């Protein structure tokens, strides 16, 4: 049975099913990260003292990661724009760039975590590090998940372009919405954890 309303628009919602589906998923993601941000506020306001992030974490590396993630959002939206222009080759270039930038983000994160572990700064060390590892770890998993979906659309999933280019374009936009959300979460995580 074919999936309904992948290309044509439903009259009642004014949207394709995929579009409303990804936004409902992102709404649940907002609540997931919201619960952790609320935990952060509760732990911080309840603590007798709280360290500045830049005294325990590597701000230059986190700034580099911010630049990497913002750049990957641009390449992601350019990948989708390339499909809207009908340029599949350009799409592959930008999508490949997005995946590589995501990989770069995780590599930088690996170096950050390695340095912390080497110094004995573990999640069990104090509440600051516990919430830092929880928030950045969950965010890192989202980066990995987004990369996996993008890699599918760059590789085997791209076959759909030949048979149904509009559906493929819609799918890439939905994948992009998730990727931009991951970028958006980092935009708030960066100052909250590293600079305040």
């Amino acid at each position: 049975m074919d999936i309904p309303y992948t290309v044509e628009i439903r009259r009642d919602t004014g949207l394709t099913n995929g579009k409303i589906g990804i936004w409902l998923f992102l709404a649940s993601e907002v609540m997931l990260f919201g619960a952790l941000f609320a935990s952060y506020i509760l732990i911080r306001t309840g603590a007798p003292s709280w360290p500045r992030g830049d005294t325990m974490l590597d701000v230059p590396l986190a700034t580099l990661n911010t630049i990497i993630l913002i750049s990957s959002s641009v390449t992601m939206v350019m990948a989708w724009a390339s499909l809207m222009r009908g340029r599949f080759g350009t799409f592959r270039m930008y999508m490949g760039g997005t995946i590589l930038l995501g990989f770069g983000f995780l590599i930088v994160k690996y170096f950050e975590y390695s340095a912390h572990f080497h110094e004995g700064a573990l999640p069990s060390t104090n509440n600051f590090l516990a919430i830092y590892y929880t928030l950045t770890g969950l965010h890192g998993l989202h980066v990995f998940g987004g990369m996996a979906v993008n890699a599918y659309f760059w590789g085997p999933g791209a076959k759909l372009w030949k048979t149904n280019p509009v559906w493929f374009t819609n799918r890439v936009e939905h994948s992009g919405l998730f990727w931009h959300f991951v970028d958006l979460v980092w935009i708030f995580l960066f100052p909250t954890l590293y600079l305040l």
Partner: protein
Amino acid sequence: MSDHATTPMTSDHAATGMTSDHAVDIDKHVRIYISVFVALMVLTIVTVTVSRFHLPVPLAVTVALIVATIKGTLVACYFMHLISEKKLIYAVLALTAAFFVALLVLPVVTVHDGFWIH
């Protein structure tokens, strides 16, 4: 769709088919994406620079959150096309925002005696 010239394209525009008009509109929006990218980079530099002034915590939190909110709004409006979405998505997000604010306010309420928590 008459609003192509002024609002970002979404998959729902793609759903109606790709035309040469769309290609022209996409060119305009690519320029917007580049401008947003530059703005995000500048705001990142602003965030890091301000943090080096070691402002008092309440002021530092306020400034950092204002800059982060501006950056987040740019990403949501232009990269995620929220500036020109359908009403149903705005409704979903309004509901989400209400619950999100409730989540963030909850810790504040629980640490103050004599209001909700006795």
